[in-house]
């Protein structure tokens, strides 16, 4: 056990996280808050004029994080331009195509001769940001999630939750959960606890499941609150503390993403989403081959 452990630690872990949603929902801030990085330092926000011309892009930022001797190679896949245009028809397509491309790349690598250093660029998790300004899911949210739920683990996020009072948060969460079920969207399911896990873990797990979508607030600025220095947002009417579980679900999300479920997200990607893709690929290839063969047979006869 220790030998395997040591080998993985030496190699380091990798994780690819996608963030998707309209611009202005705090995606970059949240990513920076989650991983205590400054990935978007040199980002230039487009003005409205430029955004009129913009199409959906896929950008990648990679960062190496090390903590207590464990190295993590984190790749953040961003989708600037998504949902920002006047006409957003099929704006999810570039995103779906990107995910498929990574699968295809892996599929080819896996079938290749030299498999020693396969790079795994498959997207392990997609944080989808839902606007707190709507009345639940918007048509675009539904369309995006339905197009992607078979390709990637979707974890829905209720963004900028500091604009909501506690009853509003509950109401929106309930509404979103209900709509997710109604529209048949298959978001990432937390695996059920084994019966031999301790009570604390079980309770934590239960709480996690009931918190979807995670109502988050992000911040990388440190403010002074109640005599302590905390990461938060300073308003004239009070201070929002990002890491205060009473204020938002940031801690829950971070725990889930990094501390408890990172491996499971990768496993599900590997075992379910990728396998689906692979099976479909092989099927369509077989169909092509059969078609070719039939055509040849026909032309021969």
């Amino acid at each position, binding site marked *: 056990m220790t030998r395997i452990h040591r080998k993985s630690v030496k190699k380091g872990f990798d994780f690819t996280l996608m963030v998707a949603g*309209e*611009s*202005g*929902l705090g995606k970059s801030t949240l990513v920076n808050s989650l991983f205590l990085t400054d990935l978007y330092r040199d980002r230039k*926000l*487009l*003005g*409205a*004029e430029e*955004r*009129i011309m913009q199409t959906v892009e896929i950008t990648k930022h990679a960062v190496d994080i090390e903590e207590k001797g464990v190295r993590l190679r984190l790749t953040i896949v961003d989708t600037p331009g998504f949902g*920002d*245009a*006047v*006409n*957003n*028809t099929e*704006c999810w397509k570039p995103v779906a195509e990107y995910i498929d491309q990574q699968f295809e790349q892996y599929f080819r690598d896996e079938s290749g001769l030299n498999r020693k250093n396969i790079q795994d660029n498959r997207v392990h998790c997609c944080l989808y940001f839902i*606007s*707190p*300004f*709507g*009345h*639940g899911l*918007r*048509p*675009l949210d539904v*369309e995006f999630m339905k197009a992607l739920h078979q390709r990637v683990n979707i974890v829905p996020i209720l963004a*900028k939750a*500091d*604009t*909501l*009072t*506690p009853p509003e948060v509950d109401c929106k969460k309930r509404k979103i959960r209900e709509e997710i079920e109604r529209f048949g969207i298959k978001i990432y399911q937390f695996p059920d606890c084994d019966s031999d896990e301790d009570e604390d873990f079980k309770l934590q797990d239960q709480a996690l499941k009931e918190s979807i979508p995670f109502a988050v607030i992000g911040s990388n600025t440190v403010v002074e609150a109640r005599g302590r220095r905390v990461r938060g*947002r*300073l*308003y*004239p*009417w*009070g*201070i*929002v*503390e990002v890491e205060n579980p*009473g*204020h938002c679900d940031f801690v829950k999300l971070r725990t889930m993403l990094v501390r408890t479920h990172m491996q499971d997200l990768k496993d599900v990607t590997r075992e379910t989403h990728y396998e689906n893709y692979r099976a479909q690929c092989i099927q369509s290839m077989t169909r092509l081959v059969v078609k070719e063969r039939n055509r040849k047979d026909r032309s021969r006869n």
Partner: protein
Amino acid sequence: WECLQVAVELPQGWRPQGLVQGSLQREGSSRLLLCVMRQSKETAGPTLGWGGWRQGRLCQGEGEDGLGFCVATVGATEAAPSCVGDMADTHRDAGLKQAPAPRNEKAPVDFGYVGIDSILEQMRRKAMKQGFEFNIMVVGQSGLGKSTLINTLFKSKISRKSVQPTSEERIPKTIEIKSITHDIEEKGVRMKLTVIDTPGFGDHINNENCWQPIMKFINDQYEKYLQEEVNINRKKRIPDTRVHCCLYFIPATGHSLRPLDIEFMKRLSKVVNIVPVIAKADTLTLEERVHFKQRITADLLSNGIDVYPQKEFDEDSEDRLVNEKFREMIPFAVVGSDHEYQVNGKRILGRKTKWGTIEVENTTHCEFAYLRDLLIRTHMQNIKDITSSIHFEAYRVKRLNEGSSTVANGVEEKEPDAPEM
């Protein structure tokens, strides 16, 4: 001539700006005209205000500059039939109880007094009787707090939400235009308020041309008014359904305007007064708010969008001064609420979160109070004037130039053009 001793009691919160002109006239037995002092927001020169006294009650009125004011009760005795108290500009402290001393030696001034200033009171009385009309349209994606803001502005449940018993917020397939009219009364002044809602705007995946039904609605109201105007037998008072003001709700993203915002405001600012507001601004820190506003203002400028109060319609330097102050603040970062909370012993409208209570009318929290003052307390008449004298006139000129088969002025019938407006 004997002048009246006027005991003036100021209600709380009102400051005397000066006795600009005093004139007391007795009409009938229970009315007294008194022009005394006003509370002014921006004083730029002497202004007049008029008010009435009805049996010891406080009256509010409108000065000729459109700014609201208040008249104190007059504890007057049955005395001189008409007395011109020539009270010059003097500043007094609040709580003034003693009136200026009567100036008996000023009797000769009466000969020069005709009384044309009383026209203001006549206009005021007529307006009070007729009531005011105000049509406000709200545009923005669903969930931006439009209904709540309207309810907060007019302190009553008058939005579409309160009329529909179901709280199901469904997004309509196409954009609907829903008009709801309410009669509001405050201190004897009646207002017929029409709120025009536009559910479905900006909510779909493809929002191309979603501004068209709205443009059409606005132009239809102008058309309706125009038709009434050119009628041979015109109504005494043409019902005014023209949209006076369009509140455009921008989501508080903190980045800049979205393409949809630009497209909408570019087109609509040409036909209606647009007042952009940053909705649900409680997600922006003060720094972010300032930065966001700067971006928005830059975006508006670079796209040639002129929102209310439009620079080109400032009539004089006084207007410009007042309007510049508002232009610096636009778009207003607002937060709306119809819940009341107890804060520091007072009941206030607000939103209660785990980290504090946002007070809607507290100007250090959000700019709702400024929006309310602009729309209702200071610029309502101006908004209506610009709608009727500029936007409507522009529409009228366009229509008359194209020729219309329904113009009943003896003009020969022509085929109406149906242009892209």
